């Protein structure tokens, strides 16, 4: 079946079989490999992209379902001049990634979360990322990154303050 859609702002037209998963369409047909496949039960979120601006798990969307729609991947968050988005920048500054496998999905989920709730509490961020698994970071710096992107952390705490101290806190 032929599908026509926009991927990261570029119009595309491709012939695909109905069972082709959107994540494989993006990776194998479009060559956009930031989104990863991490599970088979729609659990882990490593495949998260934006469909018409909203986060979806692209492993559970058929490419044919995206016909006529617009898809944004992590690659597409980068400006023409190479500047990362505020969310990507915040992840970098707050060490919100280690092995990086969950990261593009996490960034897309966070981007969608902040679009819907620009001023979340820590609890809302944790719940907002309940569909995105990470094995490396323990989530601590991911949460910090999202709150930083939301502008919650003040400049002084900004890059990297984690509450660690060499003084004993009573």
């Amino acid at each position, binding site marked *: 079946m032929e599908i026509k859609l926009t991927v990261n702002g570029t119009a595309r037209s491709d012939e695909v079989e109905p069972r*082709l998963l959107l994540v*494989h369409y993006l*990776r194998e047909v479009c060559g956009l*490999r*930031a989104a*990863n*496949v*991490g*599970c*088979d*039960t*729609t*659990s*882990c979120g*490593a495949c998260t992209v934006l469909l018409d601006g909203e986060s979806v798990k692209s492993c559970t969307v058929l490419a044919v379902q995206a016909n006529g729609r617009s898809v944004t991947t*992590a*690659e597409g*968050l*980068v400006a023409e001049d190479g500047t*990362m988005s505020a969310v*990507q920048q915040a992840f*970098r*500054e707050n*060490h919100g*990634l*280690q*092995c*990086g*496998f*969950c*990261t*593009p999905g996490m*960034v897309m989920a966070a981007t969608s979360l902040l679009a819907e709730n620009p001023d979340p509490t*820590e609890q809302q961020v*944790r*719940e907002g*990322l*309940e569909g*995105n*698994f*990470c*094995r*490396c*970071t*323990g*989530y*601590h*710096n*991911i*949460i*910090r990154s999202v709150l930083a992107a939301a502008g919650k952390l003040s400049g002084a705490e900004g890059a*990297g303050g*984690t*509450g*660690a*101290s*060499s003084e*004993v*806190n*009573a």
Partner: protein
Amino acid sequence: MSILGTRVLRTEDPGFLTTGAVYTEDVQDERLAGACYVHFVRSTVAHASILSIDTSAAQDADGVVAVYTGKDLAEAGIAPVKPMMPNMNQMMVQSLLATDMVRFVGEPVAAVVTEEMYQGEDAIELVDVDYGILPAVATMRQALSGERGLLFPDAETNVVVRYGDESESNRDLFEGCEVVVSEVIQNQRVAPAPMESRSGAAVWGEDGRLTAWIPNQGAQGTKGALVGILGLKPEDVRIITPDVGGAFGAKFGADSEHAVICWIAKQLGRPVRWSETRNENLLVMPHGRAQEQKITIGGMRDGTVLAYRLEVLQDCGAYPKAGAFLPMLTRLMTPGPYEIPRAEAFTTSVVTNTTPVGAYRGAGRPEAAAAIDRAMDLFADASGVDPAEVRRKNLLPKFTEPHKTAFGAVYDSGDYVTALEKALAAAGYDELRAEQARRRAAGDTLQLGIGLSSYVEITGPGGEAGGPNENSTVEVHPDGTATILTGTSPHGQGHQTVWAMLASEELGIPIDKITVKWGDTDLVPRGGGTGGSRSLQLGGAAVQQASRELLDVARERAAATLEASPSDLVFDTEASAFTVKGDPDISVPLSSLAEAERLFVHTVFTSPGPTFPFGSHVAVVDVDTETGKVFLRRVVTVDDAGTVMNPLLAEGQRHGGIAQGAAQAFLEEVVYDDDGNPLTATLADYPFLSATEVPSFDLVDMETPTSYNPLGAKGIGEAGSIGSTPAVQNAVIDAVSHLGVRHIDMPTSPQRVWRAIQAANGSKEA
């Protein structure tokens, strides 16, 4: 201004965040053009003889290039793989593809090769395997008793190996103890479940060499494993390590599937690719932990511990792998950071019809820490002494000279009491106890639990003659850039950034001009990889040493160039140049000394021995006593791994370890039914930790350097996961101890907690 000890952002990240890292599944290389895809047919039963395998329907299916079984490998002369250590029962061999027997659900039985990826999952459904079902040895106890039979009749036992001679057990170990407590506890099986499952790509070149892309924790070890399994010549094999999406101990060496795809690539004369599904990953990637422990602890009513016995039953799964030998490390760390006059440990490793068990973050040491810290709390409970006080009383006092334990471990430096006090103070221990008392008096539904752990662990071990070591090459180029080759193998730890920091500190070259390479066996033929928290203390030290040795070489060249004596030269790090003492206008840049002749040094750094980071964790939980559900509210930790090179990254390692360790305590478990069928083989069923179950963590800094390397660094990678597991478990039990509960096995699921409350009879007597 030193760059060491500062929060340098990772140079890896811009790529990781935008186009994504390049994992094995992402690799696009012209050598892999036209690759076909391998999918595996796997056993659906835990224990059976293979009566027949009918591949005819699969062979006729769309896009199928070939179908291979164990028979094809045997005919090609590929022998089954023997257990990795000679003291393990050598009859317990594993065929790469099962031939006459399957011994766990998920064991590979056949390999189907297709032109396109999607065709593979269609084709494997068409392979028909006829199984003769046998009783499954589903548990360690069944393995020991023999009631379900033997996995390897030729082995005449289900026992793989033992450590410690039980016949030498001291029957009077607990003589003179006023209080003795004993409990059988579980350190349950968990799944490493890195976010990147296993995969591989392989091609044989016209030069007769194999090039394989495999996610791993040490390309040199992976190469060695493949060479051994397939009977190849080392010079014919090149392993390339793409970015690796987490490993946690489960990606060392080479698995059956890696060997099979390399072999298939040779048979077909075509490049071959393979990726497993998450279900396969949870079924087949080696599991972690899986110990049953009997702990017996005795001492005086004032809280002094006199004696401790640890008896370990280790589940190896169906084929002995690293898991079989980990109890040796558990035994080594039996007393932990405590001074226990009389202690002994005995371990037995057995096979069962389950997934093989391997190394998983901490690999044998978390098991020891969990046992001794559970024992300390049981002892505290039985003797009526506060758990913090029991620890204070029994921790080894501070030492700066190496301390050898009765089990042969030589702890390099330690200050365990200070770590405990810092953690308690940061947690507000007294206030927490007061709040707990208030809620107990009020009979609140939500009760507060406080759990402690004090741990020490062994990092950077090495069995090599001459001590643990790692190599590095540092080269400075005429254009002012530098390249570092390292034998370590990062998979999220940030070596690219920190190794550059270490070289930059010596050479004055900015880190964005330094390239770090690893994981290509043609480029770096030797290396110990990354595991056992070895990388900074050995690999980082090697980078520093190579950089310093490079300056020595450069100094000679500079002296010749400037017609001065080497001792008259000063290296100006900021300028990255040699100048003449007292005459700074006469200088020569370091990079220029590489123009006439390459400027590089290869060095090996050798440590006198492994190092021993340590710490204390305080976990705070709420337990809903009506439902048993546990809410993890706080984890306050001291994790002392000596001098910290990059606090940002060190904290990240601690966070990740704390979360994984906590997850084992209250959430995660691999479960099998009584027929050996796995019940937790998807991420929906396996209770993998998500962001909503853990809080942000409170880290307290403490650095007690080691004298074993110039950095003063010990290993941080596993420490967090060692301390948090017992702290969280102890906290849950503490929350309901006033109701008479003294032990709850991990994970402290709501059902387990609720049942423990029901089983205990009302309020505890004072």
